[in-house]
Structure formats: C-alpha cells, structure tokens
C-alpha cells in the first residue's frame, strides 16, 4: 500500500525536467537567435510560446475526451483520474493561451481582445471545462462524479473542432493555421523545440496530477483491497 512509490515514480519528473530544459533551449533560440519577423518585429517571438500552447491545450482536452469514453465503457477509476488531470492541465494551458493571445494581439492587431470566431470559441472551451472541474468538486459519489464528468466532457468536446476550424469556416481576425510554406525556416527551431517542451511538461503534469487524483480516489472509496491496488497502479 505504498502509494508514494509506484511502478514508475520517476517518469513524470524526468519528463518535466526534459520539458524545462527544452523550454529554456527553445525560448533561448526564440528570444535571442531567431531573427525578428519583417513586419511584426520582436513581438512575433510570442508565437514560440503561443502556438505550442495552443497545440498542447487541444491535445490535453482531446486526451480528456479519450479518457471520458474509456471510463464510460470500462468504468476503471484510473481513467477518471486521468480525465481530471488532463482537464485541469488543459484548462491551465487554455487560460495561458488566451492571455498570450491578448498580449500578442495588442501590438499587432491593435486591440487586446475581439469577438472573433477563434477567440470566442476558445473562451467558450475554457469556461466549459472549468465548469466540469467545478462540477467534480460538488459530487461526492465517485461513480456519479466520474460518469457525469465524462458525459459533460464528451458534450463540451463538440466545441474543439469548432475552435480548430473556425479560422477556415468563417472569415476572422485571427490568422489561419500556419504551415511550413508560410513560415521562414529560421523560425522552425524555436517553434518545434517549444512544442515538444510544452508537450513534455504537459505529459508530466498530467501524470502527476492523475496520481494525485487517484490517491484521493483511493481514500474515498476506502479500500476494498482489490480496488485500492488497481487505483494505486495509475499514472
């Protein structure tokens, strides 16, 4: 029953360490090595955190959807723990995404915020998942909590494809997704390094947070020994 030392207790810490190292490297390249953009100047360097954050926020929320579906079919609590973890980390990233976007928008677009389709749907996404996190705090029965937050996650996920395609479906202030053809090769390195940096950080965080969630779950369902074992294996 030694919850503190699971099978791979160090993995998330290693991932986080790699993430920090990559983030420092990528940001160094982004801030000091890569040239400024020809029109946006120095401000364009925000892209090297903004775009990776966006990718990983959507990835975290997508992982939450996967957890929700598996939990509904299998009913294993480790998926509930992972669901909680990925929603929380996803919300953190989505919140950062909105802040970085506002900071980037002010000097380039001229406004902090505008009700452009992309921005609106992203804000909706953030609030929908914050609502689910709040819901979890108010339900005491672990089974109901798991099922309901899975259901709510699946419904709220409808917004994700809308976020992604909003810039294509509607004309918007936000620029289209960039592709290798539209980005100078000098900008690749910091962008990609930071994308992996945040990916590693996110994965590490989700694993740790899932472990926390399953520790709490294990206490709640106060152990019929078999279940405790299964939950203890999580993360």
């Amino acid at each position, binding site marked *: *029953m*030694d*919850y*503190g030392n699971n099978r791979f207790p160090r993995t998330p810490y290693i991932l*986080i360490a790699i993430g920090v190292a990559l*983030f420092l490297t990528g*940001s160094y390249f982004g*801030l000091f090595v890569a040239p400024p953009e*020809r*029109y*946006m*100047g*120095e*401000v364009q*360097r*925000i892209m090297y*955190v*903004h775009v990776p*954050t966006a990718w990983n926020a959507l990835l975290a929320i997508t992982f939450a959807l996967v957890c929700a579906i598996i939990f509904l079919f299998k009913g294993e609590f480790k998926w509930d723990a992972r669901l909680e973890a990925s929603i929380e980390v996803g919300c*953190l990233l989505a*919140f*950062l995404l909105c*802040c*970085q976007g506002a*900071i*980037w928008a*002010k*000097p*380039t677009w001229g406004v902090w915020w505008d009700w452009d389709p992309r921005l609106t749907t992203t804000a909706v996404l953030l609030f929908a998942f914050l609502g689910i996190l709040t819901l979890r705090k108010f339900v005491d029965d672990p089974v109901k909590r798991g099922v309901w937050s899975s259901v709510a996650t699946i419904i709220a996920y409808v917004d994700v494809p809308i976020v992604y395609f909003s810039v294509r479906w509607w004309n918007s202030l936000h620029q289209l997704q960039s592709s290798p053809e539209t980005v100078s090769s000098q900008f690749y390195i910091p962008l990609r390094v930071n994308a992996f940096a945040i990916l590693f*950080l996110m994965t590490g*965080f989700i694993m*740790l*947070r899932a*472990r*926390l969630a399953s*520790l*709490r779950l*294990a*206490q709640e369902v106060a152990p019929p020994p078999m279940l405790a074992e299964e939950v203890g294996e999580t993360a």
Partner: protein
Amino acid sequence: MSGMVVGGWGYVWTAYALTAGALLIYGVTLITRLREEASRSKMEAKRQ
C-alpha cells in the same frame, strides 16, 4: 506608422514570464499537493 512593430520587447517578456511563471507555480503546487496526499495516505494505511 511604419507598418512595422518597433520594439515591443515588453510584450514579449510579459508573455514568456507569464507562461513560465504559471507553469512553474502549477508544477510546484502540484508536487506539494502530491506530497501531502501521499504522506496522508501512508498514514491512513499504517493506521489500518
């Protein structure tokens, strides 16, 4: 009106500091929360 953004390092630093700071704070609180929870559950386990 040059058609180019001049300067603006303040924005860049704010964005990076915000991101790094938020991730750092989240990571630290996460690890402390986890430590607390782990020690508590160990105690529970001993008590039983």
